[in-house]
């Protein structure tokens, strides 16, 4: 009703009326019906004001007084006209409402009257209906009473019918089974038989049923026979087979036997697969084929086997409890045996993979191999197969590392051979140009080795790539990186380099023999470079690439560097020794083969001395190409002009004349001894430092000491002594510049000349000025 009024209200308000007014009307209606609490609050708020014309406490007197007091005449006039207008509109509103409600009331009265009439008619019809229902009930009772007997009969008859149908089924069973057998509808036969079996069993004491049972048994035996035959033939597909097995199991065939047969059948097929594998040559194809044929068949077999024997629902007496257990055991044995064959094939195949050129093929093959085995792992959770597979991969990786090490080693030796040839070849062709290429040879050798190491590392790195399934195995995360790559490959290679370098010092024999000295020098520099930077670089590179986690103890960089330094030192020492011996040999020959007593007065420096200086110079050049200059002691401004005061004439006299005095301990050769007392002992074949000066000092020491010892074994005439004087002066002129401490050369040359003087039958030394003239002329 409220809605209606609202609708009316809106309908009747003039279209131009403002919403405020509309609301006010609305509010008043609500107020009227006492509906809205909102209205009440408004009411309360407004109620206080007696001047509110719309409020309930409106007091016309107060309002009028207020107006009269507050407004002018004009305003009062306006107020009055406005008031009149409002009163008029309210009147019309009220009229409209009254009219509307009156209409509705009339129509409602009509409707009630009409309803009263209709209800009367309905009452009559209901009476009629109830009488009819009573009649029906009566009839129905009557009918059911008559039909009762017949119903019992029918029930009995239908029971008999069912029994007869069953009996018929039983009697027809042999024929049906036979027919099924003919049609090879084995599953139907088995299910029919199963349905009848219990009944037959139950009534087997009656001859007729017994006959049927026997017949059925015979037929079923035959059927089982046929199934077994089919099973044995093995030509059929896996699905067929599983159906066979299913049926046989239902026929109470012993499950164990079936398992065996099933597996042996599968085995023959899988073995055929394996035989097929042996023909493959390419490793990737081999693995692919192995995966696609063997492993997938294996998975299929496992799956269907599990479907048949392991996961089958436990159907009462059919599946005894230990079937799954037994079946799983058999399956494991079977899979293990086959996997072993497969693995041995794979392993043999992988071992044939010797070429180290492209590792990615092998890694990819191994990855595939490993990935496919995961399927087996999923199917057969407890199986050792995947772990064995992983082991094969690990072994392959190990083997690979060994191969790479061997490849690196042979590469290194090949490079050395090349260097050797390069050292030998140009010498034959162009003489002295050869040493010029030493630094280039060194840098190219070192660069090519480094490149080779890098490429090997890159190849090996494939094993640990993220997309390779086995890379997250613990071996590849830990041991492979640290023990495998770092230790077995990189560290071993560096050790090999040092070792083989050392061998050049030993195997080449003491005469210097087969190893060219330049190679020794070059290798020594190589080892030294390794010590200073290359080893650290390589190992850092390795550690970065392989994120080596230092679980297991690894060779420290310092130890390797020490080894390299040792090798470098040994090589350089050997170089010094070899070069020293070459020069020594010349000097020795020159001293030993000459008749020093009957030699002629010296006119020239002997050719051999020039040769010594020449050789020393070329060694100096050679060493200078690879080693830094080194430190020398400051030398006097005119070293080459130094005179040998030791054997000057006057000195000679003082040395000998008074010395033939009373023989007493410790008073002989006093001057010489005192001289030695104050000079440091000289170690001839002593380790040298890694610089040019030290190397040259070593070589010159060896040569001059040899000279000294050879001189002491000979006897000289006057001119022999003078020749030695000339030679020594010449050496003095040229050799001082090579050594770290020129005093060393002075000392050794002094010793030589002094010893010669001792060994001289007629010690008449040559004038220093003459010596100098001869030397300068030479």
């Amino acid at each position: 009703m409220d809605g209606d009024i609202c609708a009316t209200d809106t309908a009747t308000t003039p279209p131009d009326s403002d919403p405020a007014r509309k609301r006010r009307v609305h509010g008043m209606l609500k107020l009227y019906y006492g509906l809205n609490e909102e209205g009440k609050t408004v009411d309360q708020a407004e109620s206080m004001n007696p001047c509110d014309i719309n409020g309930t406490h409106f007091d016309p007197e107060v309002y009028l007084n207020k107006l009269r007091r507050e407004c002018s005449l004009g305003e009062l006039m306006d107020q009055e006209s406005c008031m009149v207008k409002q009163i008029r509109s309210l009147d019309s509103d009220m009229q409209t409402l009254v009219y509307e409600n009156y209409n509705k009331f009339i129509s409602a009265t009509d409707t009630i009257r009409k309803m009263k009439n209709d209800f009367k008619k309905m009452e009559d019809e209901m009476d009629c209906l109830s009488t009819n229902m009573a009649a029906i009930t009566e009839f129905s009772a009557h009918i059911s009473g008559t039909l009762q007997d017949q119903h019992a009969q029918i029930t009995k008859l239908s029971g008999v019918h069912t029994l007869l149908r069953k009996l018929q089924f039983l009697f027809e069973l042999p024929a049906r089974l036979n027919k099924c057998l003919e049609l090879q509808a084995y599953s139907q036969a088995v299910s029919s038989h199963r349905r009848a079996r219990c009944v037959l069993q139950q009534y087997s004491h009656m001859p007729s049923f017994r006959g049927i049972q026997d017949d059925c048994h015979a037929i079923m035996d035959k059927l089982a026979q046929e199934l077994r035959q089919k099973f044995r033939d093995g030509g059929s597909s896996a699905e067929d087979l599983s159906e066979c097995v299913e049926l046989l199991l239902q026929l109470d065939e012993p499950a164990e036997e079936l398992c065996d047969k099933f597996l042996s059948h599968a085995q023959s097929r899988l073995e055929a697969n394996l035989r097929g594998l042996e023909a493959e040559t390419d490793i990737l194809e081999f693995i692919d084929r192995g995966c696609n044929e063997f492993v997938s068949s294996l998975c299929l077999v496992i799956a269907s086997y599990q479907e048949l024997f392991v996961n089958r629902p436990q159907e009462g007496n059919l599946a005894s409890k230990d079937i799954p257990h037994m079946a799983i055991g058999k399956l494991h044995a079977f899979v293990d045996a086959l996997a072993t064959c497969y693995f041995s094939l794979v392993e043999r195949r992988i071992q044939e993979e010797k070429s180290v050129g492209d590792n990615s093929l092998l890694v990819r093959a191994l990855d595939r191999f490993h990935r496919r085995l995961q399927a087996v792992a999923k199917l057969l959770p407890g199986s050792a197969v995947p772990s064995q597979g992983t082991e094969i991969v690990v072994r392959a990786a190990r083997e690979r590392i060994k191969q790479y090490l061997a490849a690196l080693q042979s590469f290194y030796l090949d490079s050395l051979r090349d260097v050797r040839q390069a050292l030998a070849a140009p010498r034959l062709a162009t003489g002295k140009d050869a040493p010029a290429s030493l630094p280039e040879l060194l840098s190219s050798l070192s660069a090519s080795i480094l490149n080779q190491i890098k490429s090997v590392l890159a190849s090996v790195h494939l094993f640990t790539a993220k997309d390779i399934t086995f890379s997250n195995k613990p071996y590849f995360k830990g041991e492979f990186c640290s023990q495998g790559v770092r230790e077995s490959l990189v560290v071993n290679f560096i050790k090999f380099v040092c070792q083989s370098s050392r061998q050049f010092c030993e195997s080449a024999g003491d005469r210097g023999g087969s190893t060219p000295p330049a190679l020794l020098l070059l290798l020594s520099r190589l080892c030294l470079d390794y010590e200073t930077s290359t080893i650290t670089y390589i190992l850092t590179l390795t550690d970065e690439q392989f994120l080596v986690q230092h679980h297991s103890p690894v060779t420290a960089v310092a130890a390797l560097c020490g080894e390299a330094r040792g090798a470098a030192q040994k090589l350089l020492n050997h170089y010094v020794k070899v070069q020293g011996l070459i020069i020594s040999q010349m000097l020795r020959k020159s001293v030993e083969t000459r008749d020093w007593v009957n030699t002629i007065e010296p006119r020239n420096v002997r050719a051999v001395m020039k040769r010594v200086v020449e050789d020393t110079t070329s060694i100096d050049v050679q060493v200078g190409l690879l080693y830094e200059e080194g430190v020398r002691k400051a030398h006097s401004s005119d070293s080459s002009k130094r005179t040998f005061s030791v054997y000057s004439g006057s000195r000679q006299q003082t040395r000998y004349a008074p010395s033939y005095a009373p023989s007493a301990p410790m008073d002989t050769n006093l001057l010489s001894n005192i001289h030695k007392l104050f000079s440091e002992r000289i170690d001839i074949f002593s380790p040298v430092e890694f610089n040019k000066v030290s190397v040259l000092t070593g070589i010159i020491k060896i040569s001059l000491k040899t000279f000294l010892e050879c001189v002491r074994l000979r006897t000289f005439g006057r001119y022999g002594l003078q020749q030695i004087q000339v030679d020594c002066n010449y050496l003095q002129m040229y050799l001082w510049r090579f050594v770290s401490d020129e005093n060393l050369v002075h000392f050794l040359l002094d010793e030589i000349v002094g010893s010669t003087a001792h060994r001289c039958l007629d010690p008449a030394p040559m004038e220093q000025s003459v010596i100098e003239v001869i030397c300068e002329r030479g």
Partner: protein
Amino acid sequence: MEDDAPVIYGLEFQARALTSQTAESDAIRFLVGTQSLKFDNQIHIIDFDDENNIISKSVLQHQAGEIWHISASPADKAVLTTCYNKTSESRVVTCGAVWRMPPEWESGSHESPDDPHNSHNPQNLELLCHLDNSSHGNASCVLWEPMGDGKCVISLADNHALLWDLTESSTQATISSSATLEGKGQLKFTAGKWSPHHNCTQLATANDTAIRGWDLRTMSQIYCIENAHGQLVRDLDFNPNKQYYLASCGDDCKVKFWDVRNINEPVKNLEEHSHWVWSVRYNHSHDQLVLTGSSDSRVILSNMVSISSEPFGHLVDDDDLSDAEDNHQDEKTKEPLQDSIISTYEEHEDSVYAVEWSSADPWLFASLSYDGRLVINRVPRALKYHILL
């Protein structure tokens, strides 16, 4: 325990030749031959008084020439041989001769070495005979038959090995047999050693880098170690207790030990010297003690126990042992014995060309450097007792 300081004796001449007086088993006595081209050469007889650490010496004149090699008779204390240079008509020839020391030298020699008058009138050696080798070249050394009766010597001259019989109190020498080394170039024996084993029927010689063994009965070569050393071989010595063992040294700064039954590889290498090794000597009774002298002015005493005749220490005869000692012995044999350098002696200032063990005291040795300094040293006491006990 403190070891005694070395005893040093200086000669006024340069010297290379040193030997112990082989036949003398009581006094510690060494003979040194000098090298001088201008003055008369001498043989210094150095007696060492072990108790008081005093050296006494006698000097005998050797006027024939400078001495390159000296060797004492194993049978007669007074007899010795030298190899000496003789210069005549501006030719230098090396000869060998057998000498006898004058009998009086001993009486007048026990004065203090400080006595200046003694050396003013030294006595001369008495020449017994020349080992005349004018047809065979320069003699490099003369070897007495070890433990023999002083009737046989071998001299090595250029490429010949000559076996001499000394008759009539060594006054006559006749060549009984000889062997010649044939080959390319000028071959020359540099050193040799008469083996004390096999009834003294073997000789080892060195020429250039090779070591050769000779059978003296047939004067034929029995083995040859080619390239035994990388450089010249300077000296040889036989192990006195192990008949097939031989030590050699040379210009490659190495000392090598050989089993002559297997000449492909040395049994052991020693590389301790920093220059040529000129002399190597086994101790006469304890062959693990090996002495080497080198032109790096050092003398090195090594304990080569692993290849000695007593690899497990000194074994006392079972008879001598009571049970307690027996146990003690067992313990001792278990100790691992390692080859080692016992000591490096640096008393010399010049090249050491000769080292020699005393024939009387097995714990004492002498070394001689070119500047004429003779140093007498002892095996460290600790080691001595270790070996003995």
